[in-house]
C-alpha cells in the first residue's frame, strides 16, 4: 500500500513540476495576499504583529483551495479518474497519495510564506520547532480535508465555487488552532501552542479516518 501511496504522490508532484501551477501561480498569489494584508494593517505595527498568525493561516487556506482544485482537476480532465479506478490502486492509497502530494506543495509554499512574514511583517520566531510542527500538522489537516471534499465536488458542474464554500468552513478549526499555535511560536501571545498543536493532530486523525472510509465511495460515485 505504501508503494501505491508514493506512486500517486509521485505522479501528482511530477504533473505539478511539469505544469508549474504552484510555482508560477500559487506562490505569487500567496505572497501578494501577504503583502496586501501588510499594506492594510501597516499603519499600526502592533496590530500587524498581532494579526500575523491569522493572516498567515488565512492565506494558507486560500492557497489550499487552489491546490485542491488543481489536484481534483488532474483526475477529472480527460477521464483520468476512470483509468485510476481501473488501474488497480486501492482508493485508500489514492486518497493518501493525493493528500500527501497536496501537503508537500502546501508545505513548500508555507516555508516561503514564513520568509515572507519575517521580511514583510517584521516577525520574529520564538520557537522554530513549534512553528515547523504546526506547519506540518496543520498542512496535513488542510490536505486531508481538501482531498476528501475535492472528490465530493468532482462531478459538480460549479465545483470551482462550491469547493471553497465547503472547504473553508470545514477548515475553520484548523485556522483557529494553527493561528493560536503560531501565536506562541511567534511569541505574540502567551498561550500553550503545543496544546493547540495537539488539537490539530486530533483533527488530522479524524479527517484521515473519514477520508479512509469515504474516499473510495466518493471516487466511484463521482
Amino acid at each position: 500500500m505504501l508503494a501505491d501511496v508514493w506512486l500517486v504522490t509521485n505522479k501528482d508532484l511530477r504533473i505539478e513540476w511539469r505544469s508549474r501551477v504552484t510555482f508560477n501561480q500559487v506562490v505569487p498569489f500567496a505572497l501578494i495576499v501577504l503583502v496586501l494584508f501588510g499594506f492594510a494593517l501597516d499603519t499600526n505595527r502592533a496590530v500587524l504583529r498581532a494579526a500575523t498568525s491569522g493572516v498567515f493561516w488565512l492565506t494558507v487556506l486560500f492557497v489550499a483551495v487552489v491546490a485542491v482544485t488543481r489536484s481534483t482537476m488532474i483526475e477529472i480532465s480527460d477521464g483520468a479518474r476512470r483509468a485510476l479506478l481501473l488501474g488497480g490502486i486501492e482508493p485508500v492509497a489514492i486518497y493518501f497519495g493525493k493528500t500527501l502530494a497536496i501537503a508537500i506543495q502546501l508545505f513548500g509554499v508555507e516555508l516561503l510564506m514564513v520568509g515572507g512574514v519575517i521580511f514583510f511583517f517584521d516577525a520574529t520566531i520564538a520557537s522554530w520547532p513549534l512553528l515547523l510542527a504546526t506547519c506540518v500538522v496543520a498542512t496535513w489537516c488542510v490536505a486531508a480535508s481538501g482531498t476528501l471534499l475535492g472528490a465530493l465536488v468532482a462531478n459538480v458542474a460549479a465545483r470551482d465555487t462550491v469547493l471553497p464554500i465547503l472547504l473553508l468552513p470545514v477548515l475553520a478549526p484548523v485556522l483557529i488552532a494553527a493561528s493560536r499555535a503560531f501565536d506562541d511560536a511567534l511569541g505574540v501571545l502567551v498561550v500553550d501552542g503545543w496544546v493547540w498543536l495537539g488539537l490539530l493532530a486530533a483533527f488530522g486523525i479524524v479527517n484521515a479516518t473519514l477520508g479512509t472510509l469515504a474516499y473510495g465511495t466518493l471516487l466511484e460515485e463521482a
Partner: protein
Amino acid sequence: MPIVELRDVVVLLGRFPALSGLNLSLNRAEVVLLQGPNGAGKSTLLRLCGGLLRPHSGSAVVLGHDLCTARAALRCRVGLLGHDSALYDDLSVVENLRFFAKAARLPPQTVVAALDRLELSRQLHSVPVRQLSAGQRRRVALATVVLRRPELWLLDEPHAGLDQEARNLLDELVAQAVSAGATVIVASHDHERTLNLATRTVTIVGGAVATQAQTAADTSSNRRL
C-alpha cells in the same frame, strides 16, 4: 461458464434509466459488436461491464465477479478504451504507461512491449501527452489497455480518430487478444469495419437488447428477443 451474465439489469444515471431490464450473456473469446442509436445505452453497458457502475437492480456477473459486491476485483481484469483517452496530459507517453504498469504491478518490460505493439515511435516516448495529435493519443490510450493484457476488452468507438494504419493495427490486436482467450465488446457506429471482427452483433435500443445476431464469422442465425 459465461464471461458476462446480465439478467434484468437496470442502471440509473441520476433518475434516467440508462439500462432498463437488459439481458445479455457472453462467452469466452467472443467479439461482440454493440450497435444502436445514440443514447441507447452502449457506453453505459461498457462502463457497467468494466465495474465502473453498479446495477440498481437485476443480476450482473462479469468474469465471475458480482457487480454489486466485487467491482474492485473485476476492474483489474478488464481494459476499457472510452471516448476520452484517460491519460495525464502533463506526463509523457512513457510516464503514463509506467504509472499504469506500476499500478497494476506489471514489470517495466510490459511498457516497452506495449509501446512496440502500438508502433509508437521512439521520438514520441518522452513527449507530453498534451502535445500529441488525437490519433496519437488514441494509440497511447490503447497501449494502456494492451499492457495490462485484460481478459475482457471494452472498446467504445475504438476506430474513431485513428488513421488506416492504426485501424488495421487495432484489428490485429483484437484478433490476437481473442486468440489468446480474451472476450471483446465493441461499441461502434462503424459497422462495416467492426463486423469483420465480430462474432455476434447486439443491438441495444432504449437501454435493453432489441436483437442479437451471429455474424458471418459465426453462424447466420438471427433471433429477435
